């Protein structure tokens, strides 16, 4: 067991919220076609309110703090918030598009010993990246921001969301990351909008594209191991919790709403009206999330993929039932192994593993959903 896993287990046993994801704004200068947020300001927490929340989080034992949005630099006080958080000794991660990072911002993020800055880069080609952000010149500006961060010694991760629109560009982004001395990560998960609108999911990869991506050793490592049929499920698996959401992690919106995770919009309290620890310890919603093990999932507990599935309870919740399957994760398990999930059998849903479209024709222009 790694030290990180050991700390996670100890935090869970002690009821400590080890990690918090705090969105400081939903406002953004980009309009990414797949974004799950609206970008209005419906009454963001003030600087003083956020400082008060950070004090409470430090007292609660939170160690890993992610500042995200929206675009964090849309707030003029953002770097002051980072400074306050670092004074409280959080391990701070910042998610930004780096568009507004100049010399001053890069220097300050370095001085404040921020752990890492994650920047979404969708493609190495401006015409593809900018068509996703819907902001002309955004790739050029984001890369300029990354270059400044790196020149000041800030650790940068280039995050690449895999969609139909940029399916063939992940290797170009990975090469960019190498060139800039940044790390690279990618993920094919598209999240439904927080209001339940699922139209953005059509931008994500279909099963044939996932099947193809999961067979690239550059991305998944040992393909035979990654795509192997799932091993038999044992008793220990049935008693396992699905993920850290609500157990050692939670999400706080710019309006103070608390959820189990950024991808799990189950309203569990609001720090403007309640103390954070009262929500963390006594929220009926968080306690319900914590009570659920694999054994309690009516469909998934009978699925052969149960031991290896990446089932996201938040995606299941947005599909209608936090104890139900997450079809997106069923599709991933199917694309990996070629074995349909219990949910797919139930729905008699058997998508094709291979695309009939010739290779190279999957990169399409997609208009922003209304």
């Amino acid at each position, binding site marked *: 067991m790694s030290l990180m896993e050991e*700390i996670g287990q100890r935090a869970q046993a002690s009821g400590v919220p080890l990690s918090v994801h705090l969105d400081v704004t939903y406002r953004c200068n980009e309009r990414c076609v797949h974004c799950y947020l609206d970008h209005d300001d419906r009454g963001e927490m003030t600087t003083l309110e956020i400082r008060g929340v950070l004090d409470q989080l*430090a007292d609660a034992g939170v160690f890993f703090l992610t500042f995200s949005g929206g675009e964090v630099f849309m707030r003029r006080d953002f770097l002051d918030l980072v400074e306050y958080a*670092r004074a*409280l*000794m959080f*391990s701070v991660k910042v998610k930004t598009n780096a568009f507004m990072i100049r010399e001053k911002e890069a220097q300050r993020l370095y001085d404040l010993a921020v*752990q890492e800055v994650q920047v979404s880069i969708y493609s190495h080609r401006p015409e593809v990246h900018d068509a996703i952000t819907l902001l002309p010149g955004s790739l050029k500006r984001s890369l300029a921001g990354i270059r400044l961060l790196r020149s000041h010694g800030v650790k940068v991760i280039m995050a690449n969301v895999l969609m139909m629109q940029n399916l063939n560009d992940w290797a170009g982004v990975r090469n960019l990351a190498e060139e800039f001395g940044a790390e690279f990560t990618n993920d094919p998960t598209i999240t439904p909008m927080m209001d339940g609108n699922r139209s953005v999911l059509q931008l994500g990869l279909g099963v044939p594209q996932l099947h193809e991506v999961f067979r690239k050793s550059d991305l998944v490592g040992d393909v035979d191991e990654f795509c192997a049929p799932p091993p038999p499920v044992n008793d220990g698996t049935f008693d396992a919790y699905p993920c850290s959401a609500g157990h050692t992690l939670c999400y706080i919106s710019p309006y103070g709403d608390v959820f189990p995770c950024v991808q799990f919009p189950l309203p569990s309290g609001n720090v403007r009206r309640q103390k954070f620890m009262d929500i963390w310890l006594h929220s009926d919603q968080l306690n319900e999330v914590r009570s659920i093990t694999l054994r309690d999932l009516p469909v998934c507990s009978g699925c052969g993929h149960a031991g290896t599935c990446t089932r996201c309870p938040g995606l299941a919740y947005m599909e209608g039932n936090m104890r139900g399957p997450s079809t997106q994760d069923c599709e991933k398990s199917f694309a990996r192994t070629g074995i349909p999930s219990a949910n797919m059998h139930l729905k008699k849903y058997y998508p094709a593993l291979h695309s009939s479209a010739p290779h190279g024709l999957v990169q399409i222009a997609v208009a922003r959903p209304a």
Partner: protein
Amino acid sequence: MSPLYIARSVAVAARSLDGEMMIMSAKDSTLFTLNPVGTVIWQSADGQTPLAEIVEQKICAQFTVDPEEATRDAECFVNDLANHGILLISGEPISPAKPLNGGPR
């Protein structure tokens, strides 16, 4: 022997979990956990209190240890942390660093 002063580096993240410190270096993201004795030394590393005084007044008072052995172990420990860049050591008192004016919790 001249006194040794120790201060926490500001380039780390730190938090107590079940009475033991978790410390992460911002330089290379290395994660450390300190045992209860190490945690007391870390929490006392204010840059103003000599290490010998920390050992005498905190370690020997809270743990059953031989003072000489505790001093030797403490010196090894702080040197080890200093080599990882998460603790500063000096023969003179160390001023509090800016802008991180809060303390670990």
